[in-house]
Every structure is written in structure tokens, then in C-alpha cells.
């Protein structure tokens, strides 16, 4: 463990040292006449540093990500017959235990085979670590030697550093993109495994959702018999209902406050009202959640009793209402921006024709800002669809197919949470259902975002 702290530190010291070497080499080559150099000495220092350390760093990174799999392949092939005789379901946990044992973490009395495997792991780690250390060291030395030799008056170290920076930036964005692609593919892949157990159409159009009652017995037919408990329609209906409630609260309030802020409020009011409104966006959703569950829901139920309405203590209304409050700043802040982006000259043109302020806003400003407002609403909707905490606390767990906002409903996100809480078998249909739900959720929000972005793009073409 200590070792893993030392290595980055060593790298850092090495980097600074090599930088200084390169720098002083450059200075000595030009006899202190820095103007003679093509690049400033610091560039030569960075040049030498990159030359010496980059290959070793890349090698170490590759090793970091691949050693896990390579060691597993090594151990399995060494164990041979005795490993393949372990039941397939226990193989993964066997390897995990052996690896832990190799790091001196033991679970009771290990079997002989386990001991043997852990020894193999330890050996592999020992051996390969040495190889990597030696290779890295020699890469550093070779790089250092070549780099040092290359330093000259006309060396374009500055351009080299420039290109290296570009490579660094590219690799950063590649990491971000690859992660996204990885998540999408794992969603698709795991969903596919789910759809092998539960027919796609049963999932998408089924009316009954109670995955907790799905159990996989010993029989081959168990999972197919239970597939009809994975009908996702009630879950999507719940999401739709709550989102509709949320947006019908957030859209008018958000839009009207945006109009007030951009066109009516004086600069002083705007200066404190806008940040205040944006504070709403900074409140953690879990706070909204218990606000919904502990304040709004009981209030609604009490109010319902007074007028003779039966409102359950967990209701779509309470969750949707609070979620609506939560997304107000999304609507108002984005709409405020697009309304402000409508040129003042259009407002002047309208009022010079004798239009009042509200006529100007309704007839000129809002139509011009409409694409931006639509995309603000889209983003707010996709935020509402993906929101979890509020609905977990306030909307309920039971998947009921209803459009009555005063009943308890459940949403996609709530179901994902419930399915993953507690002990899970990783390949049961129940757990895999999470991926299918996630995939659908992802598709919906992605579509909304794409629509929003393309609308924004169209809008930009009009004004810039």
C-alpha cells in the first residue's frame, strides 16, 4: 500500500529533476545566450521530461488496467483441471478470495486449492512488477539519453511541447467519450440479457409490474412463467404522470418569473432575485424529497380530507408538485437567458409602434424566443424524468396503472432503486430489469435533449 504512494512521488521528483537537467543543458549549449536558442530553456526541460517519462508512464497505465485480467489468465491456466472442476457459479468468487488471500486478507481457513491459487497470484504479481519496474527504468534511461543528445540550438522543443499538449487534450476527451460509449454499451448488452429472459414486447407493453414476485426456481421454465410481472407500462405511466404534474407547475411559474426578471424587474431587483431563484437549483434533491414526504404530502392529505377527497399519504401530486418547484430554476434561468438574447431593437421597434410592454412580450419577444423556451422546457422535462430522490420518498413503490394524481404511483427511477437495494443475484431477471428500465429512460431523455439542442441550434442561426 505504501509502495503505491511512493511511485507517484518518485515520478514527480524524477520529472522535476529531468526538467532541470534539460533546462540547464539548453542554457549551457548556448553559453547563456538564450536568444540563440530556437525555444526557451523551459521548453527544452519539458521536452526532455516528456521524452524520458511519457513512455514509462504510458506503459504503467496500460499495466494498471490489464494486470487484473492477465493475472487471472495466468492463474487459471496454471491451476488447469483443478480450477475447471469448480462449479461455474463459484469460479468468480474463488478467484476473488484467492486474490484477497494473496494480499493477506483471509476468510477463515482456506482450502489447499485456494492457498495454491493465492500463491500463484502473489508470484505473478512479484514477477511482473519486477519486469515492469525494469522496463520502465530502461525506457526512462533510453529516453533521457536520446532526448539529451537531441537538445541543440535549433531543436524545436516549443513545437514538440505544443503537440504534446494537444495529445493530452485529445486523450482527455477520448476518456470522456469512451466512458459514455461504455455506459451505453453496457446498458444495451445487459438489457439484451434481460430480454433473453423476458420477451421485449411483454416488457414494453405489459400492464403488470411486480418484479419482487419474480423468483427463479430450479426449473428451466421458472423465468418464462414469471415474465408477465415485468410489464413496464404502469411504471412509465407513473413517470409520465409525475413529469406532467411537475412541468405544468414549473412551466408557467418559471416562464412568468423569467419574463418578470428580464423585462419588468429593475436592475436592483434582478441583481438579487435571479441568484435567489437559482438557489432553488442548488438545494440537494434529498432535501426536496423529505420536504415532499413530510410537509407537502400530509398537507395535501389534510386538505383532501376537508373537501372529502381521499388522498393517499404518498401521492403523485405531492411528488410532482415538489419536483415542479425543483425544476423552476431550470425553466426560469434558461428562458431568462433566451428572452434576454432577443435584441433590444425589436422591443424598441414594437414600443415605438405604440405597443404596451405586455403586447410587445406576447407578440414579439416570446415568438422570437420560443425555440429557446421550448428547449428550456425539454431540458427541464428530462431533468424531471431522471429525478429519483423526491419520488423515492414521496411517490410510493406500488406500480399502479392510474392517472389519478392523488394516488400513489411509482416511477422508473424508483423501481431501479428498489430493485438494487438489498442482496441481489447479478444475473437474475429482477436485477437485469434495471438495465432495461435504464435503457428506456436513457433513450427518452436522449431524444428530448437532442430535440432541445437542435431547436437551440436553429434558434442561433436566426440571430448571430
Amino acid at each position, binding site marked *: 500500500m505504501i509502495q503505491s504512494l511512493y511511485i507517484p512521488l518518485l515520478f514527480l521528483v524524477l520529472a522535476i529533476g529531468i526538467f532541470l537537467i534539460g533546462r540547464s543543458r539548453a542554457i549551457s549549449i548556448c553559453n547563456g545566450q538564450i536568444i540563440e536558442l530556437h525555444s526557451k530553456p523551459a521548453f527544452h526541460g519539458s521536452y526532455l521530461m516528456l521524452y524520458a517519462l511519457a513512455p514509462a508512464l504510458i506503459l504503467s497505465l496500460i499495466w494498471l488496467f490489464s494486470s487484473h485480467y492477465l493475472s487471472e489468465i495466468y492463474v487459471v491456466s496454471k491451476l488447469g483441471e483443478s480450477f475447471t472442476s469448480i462449479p461455474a457459479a463459484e469460479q468468480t468468487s474463488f478467484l476473488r478470495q484467492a486474490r484477497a488471500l494473496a494480499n493477506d486478507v483471509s476468510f477463515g481457513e482456506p482450502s489447499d486449492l485456494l492457498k495454491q491459487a493465492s500463491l500463484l497470484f502473489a508470484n505473478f504479481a512479484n514477477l511482473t512488477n519486477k519486469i515492469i519496474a525494469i522496463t520502465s527504468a530502461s525506457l526512462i534511461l533510453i529516453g533521457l539519453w536520446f532526448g539529451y543528445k537531441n537538445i541543440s540550438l535549433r531543436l524545436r522543443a516549443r513545437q514538440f511541447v505544443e503537440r504534446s499538449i494537444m495529445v493530452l487534450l485529445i486523450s482527455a476527451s477520448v476518456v470522456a467519450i469512451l466512458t459514455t460509449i461504455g455506459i451505453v454499451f453496457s446498458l444495451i448488452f445487459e438489457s439484451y440479457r434481460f430480454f433473453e429472459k423476458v420477451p421485449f414486447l411483454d416488457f414494453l407493453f405489459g400492464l403488470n409490474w411486480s418484479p419482487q414476485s419474480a423468483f427463479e426456481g430450479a426449473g428451466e421454465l421458472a423465468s418464462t412463467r414469471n415474465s408477465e410481472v415485468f410489464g413496464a407500462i404502469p411504471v412509465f405511466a407513473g413517470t409520465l404522470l409525475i413529469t406532467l404534474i411537475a412541468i405544468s407547475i414549473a412551466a408557467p411559474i418559471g416562464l412568468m418569473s423569467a419574463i418578470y426578471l428580464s423585462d419588468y424587474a*429593475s*436592475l436592483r431587483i434582478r441583481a438579487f432575485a435571479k441568484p435567489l431563484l437559482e438557489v432553488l437549483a442548488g438545494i440537494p434533491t434529498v432535501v426536496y424529497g423529505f420536504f415532499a414526504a413530510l410537509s407537502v404530502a400530509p398537507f395535501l392529505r389534510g386538505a383532501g380530507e376537508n373537501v372529502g377527497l381521499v388522498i393517499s399519504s404518498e401521492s403523485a401530486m405531492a411528488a410532482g408538485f415538489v419536483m415542479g418547484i425543483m425544476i423552476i430554476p431550470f425553466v426560469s434561468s434558461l428562458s431568462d437567458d433566451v428572452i434576454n438574447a432577443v*435584441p433590444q*431593437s*425589436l*422591443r*424598441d*421597434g*414594437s*414600443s*415605438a*409602434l*405604440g*405597443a*404596451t410592454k405586455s*403586447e410587445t412580450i406576447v*407578440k*414579439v419577444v416570446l*415568438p*422570437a424566443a420560443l425555440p429557446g423556451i421550448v428547449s428550456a422546457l425539454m431540458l427541464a422535462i428530462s431533468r424531471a424524468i431522471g429525478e429519483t430522490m423526491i419520488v423515492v420518498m414521496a411517490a410510493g413503490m406500488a406500480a399502479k396503472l392510474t392517472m389519478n394524481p392523488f394516488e400513489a404511483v411509482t416511477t422508473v427511477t424508483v423501481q431501479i432503486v428498489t430493485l438494487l437495494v438489498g442482496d441481489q443475484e447479478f444475473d437474475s431477471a429482477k436485477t437485469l430489469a434495471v438495465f432495461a428500465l435504464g435503457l428506456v429512460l436513457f433513450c427518452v431523455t436522449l431524444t428530448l435533449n437532442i430535440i432541445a439542442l437542435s431547436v437551440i441550434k436553429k434558434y442561433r442561426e*436566426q440571430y448571430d
Partner: protein
Amino acid sequence: MSKKAKQENTKIAPQVKIKGRNVDVFYGDKQALFDINLDIERNQVTSLIGPSGCGKSTFLRCLNRMNDTIDICKITGSITLDGQDIYDKEIDVVELRARVGMVFQKPNPFPKSIYENVAYGPRIHGMTSSKEELDKIVLKSLKRAGLFEEVKDRLDESGTSLSGGQQQRLCIARAIATRPEVLLMDEPCSALDPIATAIIEELIDELREKFTIVIVTHSMQQAARVSQKTAFFHLGKLIEEGATDDIFTNPRNQKTQDYITGRIG
């Protein structure tokens, strides 16, 4: 400006349409206009000239109270339109602006169709009761602004798709569609090429028959070409006013002389 028109003008006794008396304008603590006294005469083109920042646009915007939209702007003195103080509490600003139309420096058509741009004013003022009447007003305004022939086949296209000069004529059509009595123009040609400028100048001359026009311009040639009366502003003060011919051929004030000969500005 044709010679004939000028001669006609001298025959008719000029009537004062707008009368500005002791007008001071402040932006916060800064005074932008000092004690302006200026008469705008009916059915004439009055041009306001002067170097940048001299207050000519500020004065123009006082005439339809466009300065009201600026919070820190304060105006004292009196400006009367047909003898009625336009800063009186009884005055409805919305109605005033319908009577005193304005065309801006940069063409600012609404992102609506050409037809809707022109129909905007008549619609909000409820000037028409039927579609036919509205059509008539739109066509008449477009014709009067000299744009109709160019756009008659594409009235439903966006006003922003027109060229700069066409857009400015659309804005003029939009302004005259509400049948104003006065038309204020704030450097209407400064964003246009010479050909478009020539077309607009000719238009201004024609519009004089129906409207009283006040035009702010940077170009002294333009002032000389289109206006009958010129007022020269400098550093927030009205230095000299009078018949355009006099101002340009025989200025009384040294500053005016310097400006029109290009020594200040």
C-alpha cells in the same frame, strides 16, 4: 430634394407641429441636453446634425418618449405636440407613439412575415375591423414605402430575409401603417449602401407630403439633400437652427461653420 418642392414650401406659411421649450435631459447625474428650444414644422423635413454624442438622438427620442424605457433618464422643460404637452400626466404614451412613429438606425424587422410586420401596428391598435381593410392598409403602406413591387410575390416570407435597404423600407412601411402624424428617423441610412440610401432619401422627400419628418443624420450631404430645416447640436446644446440652405451656405455661428467644413466632429 427637388428644387420645386423647396419653392412650394416657402409659399405655404409653416405651421409648428412640435414645439420644444427649455428641454433639459439628464442621464443620472450627467446632463445630456441643455436648454433646447426648437420648433418642428408641419410637413417639412427637419434634420438634426452634429458630432457623435452631441445629444441629437437623445432629443429625437424625447419626441416620442422612447427615453421612458431608460430608468435613469430625466427630462425637464416642455415638448408640445399640436399644443399639447406630451409629458403631461394625462398623455397616454402608447397613443403618443402611435401618433409619432419612429424608424431606427439599424433595420429591426420583427422575425415575422413581411405582411405581419406591416400589419403589427394596425392590429395592436385595432385600426381595422376586417381582413380586407387590413390588407388594404398593408398594401398601401408597402407601396408608399416603395417596397411593394419588390416583395409583392412573397409577403409571407420572413422580414429578416430581405436585404438591408429593403428591411429599412419595411420598417418605414411598418411605421407609416399606423398613420402617424410625425415620423422620427434615427440615422436611417447609416447601415445602408449608397444605392439603398438614395432610394430612402427619395422616399423621405415623398413622405413629407403626408408626414412631419425629423431625421437625425451624420451625413451633412444627406441633411442638405433631404431637409428644409436643419438644427446643429454640439455637446448637448443647440448651436444653430434655420433653413437648411442658410445653415449650409451661410452659417452664423463659428462652431457650425467648423462642423460643416469638417474641422470639428
